[in-house]
C-alpha cells in the first residue's frame, strides 16, 4: 500500500503572534516551528496502515528550508521518504497554489491513500486537502476521527454538529485528520538516527510545472480588537458574588 501524508510546518500553539507594522504578515522572530498538530495524526495513521498492510509512507511538505526539520521528524517517526517542495516563488502560496504543487508532486508517485490535517493551525483555512483531492480527481472524507481501510474501501467516522457519520469511499481517496483519530508516536532515538539517511527529494515550482497564479489575495494582517477591561466581582461571600454575576448577565449583558 502506498500512503502519502502531507505535512505543514506551523508556529507552536503557545506562540504569541504579532502583526508586522506594515500589516504585510507576522513577525517570525522567536517563533518555534513544529509540525501542524492535525498533520501528526495523518502521519501516525499512515504508519499504522503501513504496519498493517505493508507498503511505503511518503511525507510531502511545502515551505522554506526550515521545513526540512519537520520532514525529518516525520521520517524519524517511521515514514520512508520525503518530498520537499521548496521555492521562494511558493512562499506566500495560497491554498490553491499549495494544493496544485502538492498534486503535481504526488502525481509522480503511486498512492492508494493520502492524509492531510483537517486544517493548519496557522492560516486555519482547511482547504488544501479538498482542493488536492479535486485536482487528483479522487474522493475525500474530511475531519475524520476513526478510519478502517479494507482492500479498496475506506470507512471513516466523521463527526458533524449533533451526529456522527459513517462514510465509505473507494480508494484511492484523501482523508483529512482530526484529533481523536489516534495518539501520534514520538520519534525514537534509533528512528532519529535512521531518519538522517532517508531520502528527501527536493522540488521547485518549475520542475513540478505549477502555475503560480494565486486565487486568494491577502490584503493585510490586522491585530484582533482589544477587549475592554473587565469587572472583577469582589466580596467574601460566594453566594453574593454569584448573585451579582447572575444579575449583571441578565441586566447589563442581557445574555441570559
Amino acid at each position, binding site marked *: 500500500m502506498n500512503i502519502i501524508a502531507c505535512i505543514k510546518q506551523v508556529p507552536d500553539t503557545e506562540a504569541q503572534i504579532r502583526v508586522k507594522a506594515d500589516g504585510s504578515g507576522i513577525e517570525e522572530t522567536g517563533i518555534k516551528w513544529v509540525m501542524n498538530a492535525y498533520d501528526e495524526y495523518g502521519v501516525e495513521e499512515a504508519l499504522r496502515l503501513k504496519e498493517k498492510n505493508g507498503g511505503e509512507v511518503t511525507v510531502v511538505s511545502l515551505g522554506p528550508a526550515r521545513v526540512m526539520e519537520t520532514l525529518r521528524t516525520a521520517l524519524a517517526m517511521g515514514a520512508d521518504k520525503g518530498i520537499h517542495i521548496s521555492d521562494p516563488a511558493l512562499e506566500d502560496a495560497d491554498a490553491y497554489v499549495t494544493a496544485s504543487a502538492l498534486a503535481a508532486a504526488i502525481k509522480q508517485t503511486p498512492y492508494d491513500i493520502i492524509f492531510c490535517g483537517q486544517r493548519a493551525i496557522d492560516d486555519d483555512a482547511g482547504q488544501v486537502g*479538498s482542493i488536492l483531492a479535486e485536482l487528483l480527481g479522487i474522493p475525500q472524507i474530511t475531519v475524520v*476521527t476513526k478510519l478502517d481501510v479494507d482492500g479498496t474501501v475506506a470507512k471513516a467516522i466523521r463527526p458533524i454538529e449533533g451526529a456522527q457519520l459513517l462514510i465509505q469511499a473507494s480508494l484511492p481517496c484523501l482523508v483529512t485528520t482530526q484529533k481523536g483519530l489516534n495518539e501520534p508516536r514520538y520519534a525514537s532515538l534509533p528512528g532519529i538516527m535512521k531518519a538522517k539517511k532517508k531520502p528527501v527529494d527536493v522540488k521547485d515550482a518549475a520542475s513540478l510545472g505549477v502555475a503560480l497564479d494565486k486565487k486568494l489575495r491577502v490584503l493585510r494582517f490586522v491585530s484582533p480588537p482589544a*477587549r475592554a477591561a473587565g469587572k472583577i466581582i469582589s466580596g467574601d461571600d460566594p453566594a453574593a458574588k454569584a448573585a451579582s454575576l447572575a444579575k449583571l448577565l441578565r441586566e447589563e449583558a442581557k445574555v441570559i
Partner: protein
Amino acid sequence: MAKDVWIIAEQRDGVLRKISFELASTARKLADELGEEVCAVLLGNGVTAGAKDLAKYGVDKIFVADDAIFAPYTTDAHSEAVAKLVKEKEPAIILLGASSQGKDLSSRLAGKLATGLATDCTDVKIAAGKMVAVRPVYAGKCFVEVQSATNPQLASLRPNVFPVVEKAGAGEVIATEIAIDPAQLKTKVLEVQKDASGRVDLTEALVIVSGGRGMGGPGGYAALEELAGILNATVGASRAAVDSGWRPQTDQVGQTGKVVSPNLYIACGISGAIQHLAGMSSSKYIVAINKDSEAPIFSKADYGIVEDLFKVIPELTKECKILMG
C-alpha cells in the same frame, strides 16, 4: 459578466438550519450595496416545502434541486451540482456556512471552480465592487483581510457571528434539475448516528459553560452540566481537561479544538493558556471563575470572580434558576 450574490442553503431533514438565514441576511446586505439579486441554492430530498422560508430574509430566487441523490449530503453530489449551476449562471459571490457541511463543500468547490475561498469569515463587505472578507487566522490571534482574485468569490461564514435580519424578498422557488451521473459518486454515507443528548454543538451554541484543569477530574463537570441545563448551554472543556481524559475530544475549545463565538462563555477553572484564549476570545461576553487571581483568563473576561468554582457554580445555578423562572 458575473453578477448576483448566492448562498448555498443548509438543511437537515428538510428544515433549514439557522446558518442559512445568517447567510441570506448577509447576502442581502452585500447585494443591496451592489444593486444585485440574492439567489439561494437548496439541495436535498423533500426540501421544496421548506424552501420558501428563505424569502423572509431577503432571498429573491431559490434554485431547489429536490432529488434523492442529494440526501444525505455527500461531497461528490453536492459539489458537482453546485459547480454545474454556478458555471451556467455565473454568480459573482457565493456565501456558504463554515459549518461541518459548508466547510467540506466550500473547499471542494474552490478546487472545482479554481477560485478563491475565504474560510470561516467573521465579516464581509464590499469595496470597489468586490467582496473583502475578514477572517481570523492563528485561531484569532490575528486577522487577515482577503479578496478572491477570480469569480465567483467564495466565502464561508462562521456560524453565530452574522445577524439574522428579516426582510421580505421575492422568494421565487425555481425547481431545478441538475443531472448527476451516479457513477461519479465515490463516497456513500453508510450510517448517521445522532447524538442522543440533543445538545447544541459548541460551534453553534449561544451559551457555553466550559471547565478546565480546575475541575479536578471528570466528576467536577456534574456542577457545570447542571448550570448548562438551566442556561440551555453546551459544556466545553480546555485542552488540559480533554488530554487528561476527563471530557471527550469533541468538547475541546481552543486552537487545536473548536473555535467558538457564543453570546456568553463561562470559563470555570480555566487558567487561559494562549491556545485556549485563541479559541474563545471572539465570544461576545466572557466570564471567568478561577481561584487564582493572576490567571490570564481574567485579562479577557468581561466579568470575573476570584473564588473556588465549586463554591460559586452551585450558587450561580440557583440564581439563574430563579432568574430564568
